[in-house]
């Protein structure tokens, strides 16, 4: 039997990779994918918890997270498209019209 905390550490690793990607990539779409990675990390730990606690609640939450992720993707990508129309760039550092 694999101990539960192995899954948790895997989840922490994927989460941190997601954080790293979000903090450092210049491309908006990849930043956004990093967030998806973080959500997947959470899903891994939730499913693992659910399995080890013999309770479905965690998996139900995963279900909702996936739903929200889909909605988020639709809205996020729509924002990115609106941005492309005004300024053809995918790089976050090209966007600092507002600061201070």
């Amino acid at each position, binding site marked *: 039997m694999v101990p539960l905390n192995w899954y948790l550490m895997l989840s922490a690793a994927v989460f941190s990779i997601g954080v790293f990607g979000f903090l450092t990539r210049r491309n908006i779409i990849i930043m956004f994918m990093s967030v998806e990675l973080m959500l997947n990390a*959470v899903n891994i730990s939730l499913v693992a918890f659910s399995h080890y606690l013999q309770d479905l609640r965690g998996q139900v939450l995963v279900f*909702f997270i996936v739903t929200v992720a889909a909605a988020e993707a639709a809205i996020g990508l729509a924002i990115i498209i609106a*941005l492309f129309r005004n300024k053809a760039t995918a790089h976050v550092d090209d966007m600092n019209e507002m600061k201070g």
Partner: protein
Amino acid sequence: MPLVMPDLKPITPEIVMTCLALFILVADVFIKRKETLALLSIIGMAAAAFTFALPGALNTTFGGMFISDGYSMFFKIVFALNVILTILISVKYLAVERVNFGEYYALLLFSTLGMMIMASAGDLIVLYLGLELMALSTYILAGFIRYDMKSNEAALKYFLLGSFASAFLLYGISLAYGLTGTTNLDRIAMTISEKGLAGKPALTLSMIMIAVAFSFKIAAVPFHMWAPDAYEGAPTSVTAFMSVGPKAAGFAVIGRVFLMAFPMVRAEWVAVFIPIAIMTMAVGNIVALSQTNIKRMLAYSSIAHAGYALLGIIAGTADGLASMMNYMLIYAFMNMGAFAVIIMLRSEGFKGDAISDYEGLSKTHPLAAALMLVFMFSLTGIPPTAGFMGKFYIFMAAINAGYTWLVIIAVIFSAISAYFYLRIVMNMYMKDPKETVTLTTSPSMGLALAITTVAVLAIGVLPAKVIYLARVAFP
């Protein structure tokens, strides 16, 4: 497993709101004059607010997932006021910005629905979904002027950082679930005390992550970075909406989660929130000093006000929470009023959001200047305005809970804040007008201004009723 019909009475306001939003969405197709939609939204919203008072409205339903109590009711009143005032100040403004779409009203209502669900959430899953419902609608609203680069940028920054923060929230929720086997706030608290989980590193981490995500929502330093840009770039009416609504909703859940689910580890989260509160007051007030754009200045001011309100949470007493709730209500009025004046200055071909645009306003538009004066005084906390009473109660509660030193810091920063609020007043009253400013007025705007002004002055002079409401609302 039989399907048991849940008790729907406590959730009637939310149901009415949902139907209303869907109706507006459909009606948008048939109705050409969007002002009619605004009117319908307000009427519907008022009807929803009316259902707060129905018998049986105060109850817990859906197996403890939805709690309708005095606490959530108070916040729902704040949200309802917020959305009604926002709609009132939006009508003419949307036409000026050329984004007069019916979806706007539906999205405002959905966002408000999300806030109401958050305030009533008795379960972390419901809380998360409510939060996302609110946040996603607000992201769209922030980017609503889609031909405007600033609006796009605001939406993008808000969206990316927001989803980053909600990933942290989920991580915290997953840990809390793993530790206690439940997502119900009451049962989490019970399990923590039964199994002696307090002090476990995983619980602490979970609490930190949840605190971080909520701090993001209330724009507390250092999780505030999105706020100035999002506030500046978003359509002004949306800025007004999101400087009050999501913040109040954030405070509602902070109060609910930390006092309901984590009372056992109070010392720990207080230790998290104290430095956050101090930094929030410091950064908000200090950076606001050197702003030249009034929307941006109010963004920092909004950050600073979150710092004051956090004192109520830190105090943690019934008085503390009541004063925080009271502060949210007062903040809704004074901030909405200030934004209403800002929106009036926006006219075709004139932005009107630079602080220098306010020079000599008292000579060209004395009434607008006088109203702005009232709101600026209130935001500063000068009696006899509501802002003074709000701060007074918060500080009093914090002192009574033994945080005198924190209140002294708050008072010092509050004194600094006078400088930038009164700079607007000085610009209006002591300088000569540079260019002629035309005001964009409408009856609905007048109504919004009348409501906010009267409320700010009335609460300032006769505050006891409001604080009593907040005080009895807290269980």
